């Protein structure tokens, strides 16, 4: 009944890839669900069991390493707090219902976060324009992620491939970050992935 509009809907004007060899592709990933699950101080073990039961994946031990199932990514975003990212289907309700109130809580953030990506050999150089993280591949390996700051907004930066990164940004800042991103890639030459093409199940790029 109600059509979903992503934060960047209408702004992803396809742009021909520039001739530059280092050309980058930037775009928005849509069609995902993000559920925050949190445990109270001593209940992480319990939460982990629940998550394993529902998703078949366990909670990562430390911030920076992802937990995964075939369909899901789990980011640790606080001492007992996690983001589960996956397709928009039944797992959400299962987890929402599956976490007892004494153990912890769940909050849907699917609409509150916008997922952007940047792909191409110069992606690291472009990101260095705004992200104060050492993205050297030996330091920040593929599949690593970090919670950090981008132009005064909080982002979760996930390296999904050798040259591909995803940025989870607050929806109300998404246009601002997008403007930043398309500006940062300007010197390298870039193309914008059309809205439809980016609507993927997620991060399959593994090099």
């Amino acid at each position, binding site marked *: 009944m109600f059509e979903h509009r992503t934060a960047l809907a209408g702004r992803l004007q396809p742009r021909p890839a520039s001739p530059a060899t280092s050309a980058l592709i930037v775009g928005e990933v849509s069609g995902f669900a993000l559920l925050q699950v949190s445990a109270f101080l001593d209940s992480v073990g319990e939460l982990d069991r629940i998550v394993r039961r529902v998703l078949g994946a366990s909670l990562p031990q430390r911030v920076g390493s992802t937990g995964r199932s075939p369909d899901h990514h789990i980011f640790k975003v*606080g001492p007992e707090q996690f983001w589960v990212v996956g397709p928009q289907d039944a797992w959400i309700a299962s987890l929402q219902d599956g976490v007892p109130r004494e153990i912890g809580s769940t909050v849907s953030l699917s609409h509150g976060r916008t997922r952007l990506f940047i792909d191409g050999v110069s992606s690291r150089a472009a990101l260095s324009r705004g992200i104060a993280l050492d993205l050297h591949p030996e330091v920040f390996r593929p599949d690593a992620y*970090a*919670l950090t*700051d981008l132009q005064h907004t909080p982002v979760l930066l996930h390296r999904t491939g050798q040259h591909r990164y995803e940025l989870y940004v607050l929806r109300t800042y998404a246009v601002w970050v997008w403007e930043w991103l398309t500006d940062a890639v300007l010197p390298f030459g870039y193309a914008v992935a059309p809205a439809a093409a980016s609507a993927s199940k997620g991060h399959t790029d593994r090099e």
Partner: protein
Amino acid sequence: MLAIHCPLCGERPYTEFRYGGDASKRRPALGTMAPEAWHDYLFLFDNPKGPHREFWQHDQGCRQWLLVVRDTATNAVGEVILARNAGAGAGEGPGGR
């Protein structure tokens, strides 16, 4: 640029954090009816030239409030722990009196 080692996220520039001020004082328990206790807690500072126990929140990261010991004479950042591990009212913790 000052860098703070977040126990969860690792070392980050201080600009990812929000300063929360002096952490050397014990917060009066909720409901403490003595205004003087609140006055001392809120308004009087040791303001040392040397190690200073202070709060920072990693608000652009894991949102944890941290208890940081930093030398105000050099800005060198020492031990950092999660504030919640500092004991009730954050009166204790690294470098505690």
